[in-house]
C-alpha cells in the first residue's frame, strides 16, 4: 500500500466507478460471446481495469488516446458511452462506428478516443502523429498510447520510440505488461523483462509500477501528465498487470496453469482498490455496492438497447470507403 497517494475521496470514487463499469462490461461481453451475440475476436481486459481508469480518468476529452486490440476498457474509461461500445460489439447501427468497426476498431473522437488497432504495435506511430499535431499547434493537449508487452518486439515500437524521443513529443506511452504475448510468455519473446529497460538508452523518463496498485498507477501517470501538459515528452509508464482471461474469448489457454484464487485476489485491481478505498475512508461499502449495482444496470440497459437497434443498412459499407 502506498501511504502517500495524491488520490482524494472524489477521485477514488470515480476510479472505482470506472473499474466496475469496465469489469462488469467485460464479464457481460464474455457471456455474450459464448452466445454468439457479440462478434469476431474478443479480447477482454479483466485485470487491467485499474490502468485504464487511472490513466484515462486524468485526461480531458481533447486529449487523445490510442489503444490496441484489448481496448474496451480504455474506450470506456476515456468516456465512450457503454451503450455505444456494446452496440458496436454486437454489430448494430447504434454502435460507436455503426457496427462496421467492431471490438478491435472502436473509435469515439468526441471523447478523444482516436482508436483501437487490431495490428499489434500499429497504433504507436499514429499516436506520434497526433502528438506531433499537438506539438506543432502548441497546445497543452497530450496523447496516450496504450500497448502490451507483446508490441515491444514489433518494429513499429522501436521506430516510434526513437522518433518520439528525437522530436520530444507530448506523448505518454503506457505499457500494460501482463507478461503474455498472445499465448506465449514474455521470456520466450525477449531477453529483457522490463519494458522500461528496453527504452532506457533513449534517455526520457520512464517508470515501472504494479498495475494492480491503482493509486500507484494514478500517481505515476499524474507526474508524467503534468510535464506532458507543458509540451514535454515522451514518457513511458509500464504497468505490470495480470491478464485474467485468455488472449481472446474462446482461447483454450493450454499454455498456462489455472491461477489460484488467492493469487488472483492479490492481483485483482478492483478488489485491492476497494479494500484500500474503504481503509482510507475514501468510500464506504454501501457506496461501493451502489456503484456496482448502477454499473450492472447500465450494462443491462446497453445490451437491451443494442438488441433493439437494427443492424446497419448494407449500403453503409459502400458509403464509408471514402470521405
Amino acid at each position: 500500500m502506498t501511504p502517500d497517494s495524491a488520490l482524494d475521496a472524489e477521485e477514488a470514487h470515480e476510479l472505482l466507478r470506472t473499474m466496475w463499469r469496465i469489469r462488469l462490461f467485460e464479464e457481460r461481453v464474455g457471456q455474450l460471446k459464448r452466445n454468439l451475440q457479440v462478434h469476431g475476436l474478443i479480447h477482454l481486459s479483466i485485470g487491467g481495469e485499474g490502468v485504464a481508469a487511472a490513466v484515462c480518468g486524468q485526461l480531458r476529452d481533447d486529449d487523445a488516446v490510442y489503444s490496441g486490440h484489448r481496448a474496451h476498457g480504455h474506450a470506456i474509461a476515456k468516456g465512450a458511452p457503454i451503450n455505444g461500445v456494446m452496440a458496436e460489439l454486437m454489430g448494430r447501427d447504434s454502435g460507436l462506428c455503426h457496427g462496421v468497426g467492431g471490438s478491435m476498431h472502436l473509435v469515439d473522437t468526441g471523447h478523444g478516443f482516436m482508436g483501437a488497432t487490431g495490428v499489434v504495435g500499429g497504433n504507436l506511430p499514429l499516436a506520434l502523429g497526433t502528438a506531433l499535431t499537438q506539438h506543432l499547434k502548441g497546445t497543452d493537449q497530450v496523447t496516450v498510447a496504450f500497448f502490451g508487452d507483446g508490441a515491444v518486439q514489433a518494429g513499429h515500437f522501436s521506430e516510434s520510440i526513437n522518433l518520439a524521443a528525437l522530436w520530444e513529443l507530448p506523448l505518454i506511452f503506457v505499457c500494460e505488461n501482463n507478461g503474455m504475448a498472445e499465448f506465449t510468455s514474455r521470456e520466450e519473446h525477449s531477453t529483457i523483462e522490463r519494458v522500461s529497460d528496453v527504452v532506457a538508452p533513449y534517455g526520457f523518463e520512464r517508470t515501472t509500477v504494479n498495475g494492480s496498485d491503482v493509486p500507484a498507477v494514478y500517481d505515476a501517470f499524474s507526474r508524467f501528465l503534468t510535464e506532458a501538459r507543458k509540451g514535454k515528452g515522451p514518457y513511458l509508464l509500464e504497468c505490470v498487470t495480470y491478464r485474467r482471461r485468455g488472449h481472446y474469448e474462446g482461447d483454450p489457454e493450454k499454455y498456462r496453469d489455472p491461477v489460484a484464487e488467492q493469487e488472483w485476489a492479490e492481483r485483482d485491481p478492483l478488489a485491492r482498490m476497494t479494500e484500500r478505498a474503504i481503509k482510507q475512508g475514501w468510500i464506504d461499502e454501501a457506496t461501493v455496492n451502489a456503484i456496482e449495482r448502477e454499473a450492472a444496470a447500465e450494462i443491462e440497459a446497453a445490451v437491451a438497447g443494442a438488441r433493439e437497434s437494427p443492424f446497419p443498412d448494407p449500403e453503409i459499407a459502400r458509403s464509408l470507403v471514402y470521405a
Partner: protein
Amino acid sequence: MPETTFVEAIAKTLATAMRADDRVIVLGEDVAEGGPYLATAGLADEFGRERVRNTPISEGAVCGVAIGAAQSGLRPVVEIMFIDFITLALDQLVNQAAKAHFMSGGQLSVPLVLRTQGGAGQRNGAQHSQSLEAWLTHVPGLKVVMPSCAADAAGLLQSAIDDPNPVVFVECKALYFRRETVPEPPEPVPIGRAKTLRPGKNLTIVALSRMVGEALEAADRLASKHGIEAEVIDPRTLVPLDLDTLAQSVKRTGRAIVAHEAVNAGGFGAELAAQLQAAAFDYLEAPIQRVGAPYTPVPVSPPLEDAYRPGAQEIEAAARVALDWGEYDAEPWEHGAIAAPQTTP
C-alpha cells in the same frame, strides 16, 4: 508558359500549398535537404524544419505519423523515397490509412498525400526500380494517382492535398528532369479524370506514367508508317478510374492496348483490360493487348535493363497484333509479331 521540370513542379506546388494552408506539412527522409531528386528543394528554407521534417529511415512509423497527424487535423505530405520502400509502410497505409474512415463509421478521415516514385531506367537494380502501383489499387480506401507530365503533376498534387482521403501519388523518376511547360498558376486537375492526348479512330492506347510518352511515339510511327490513327489516353488516376472516357474511346475504335512499365502479371493493365472488356465487349474487334514488363525483377546490366523496359516499340508491336487480329492463320507470336504470352509460375 514557363519552362520547368516535373520535380520543380512538385516542389513549387508543395510550396504554394504550404503558403496557403498552415496545416500542410512535409515529412520524409532527407526532405529538408531537398531529397535525392530535389522534389522538396527549398521548402525547409522557406517554411522551417518543423514543417519540413527530416525523418529517420523508419518508413513504417513515418507513414503512421503522417496518418495520425492527418486524422488529427493536419494535411501531411509524406515522401517515401522509392516506391520499393513502401513495403515497409504497407501496414500503416493498408491497415490504418485506408480503413480509418470506414472502421470509425465516418468519424475519422485521413487527408494524407503519400508521394513516392518508381520505375526503372537508371541502373538502380531490383530494389530501386519497381512499379508497384497495382498493389495499392487493390486496397479500398486509397486513391492512387500517377501523373505523366509536369503540368498534370502540379494540378493533381494540389487536388491530392485538398482531398479528404489518403492519396498515393506515384511519380516516375525517368520523367523528373525533362524540360516541360506548366501554366502559371498551374491548372487544377481533378482526381479521377482521364486525358485524351491524341485523338484517333483505329485503336485506343491506354498508357500510364512514362508509357504515355512511349504511346504517343508509337502512335506517331503507326500514323506515318501505316496511316493508322491511334487514340492515346492517360487515365492519370488509377483509383478512382475514369472508365467512361476509356470505354467511350474503345467503343469507337474497337481495339485497345493497355500499357504500363509494371510487370504484366497482376498489373493494373489486367484491371483495365477486365473493366474495358466488360464495358465494351460487343464493340471489340480483337482481344485487348497488354504491354508491360516481363516477369522478372529489374536487372542492372544496361542492355538487360533496356530490354526489360517496355517502350514505344512494344506498343507498336501490340498495335499490329490488335489491328491484324483475325488475319492470321496461326497465333500472332508464331509470326514473330509479339513475344509469346508468358505464363507465370
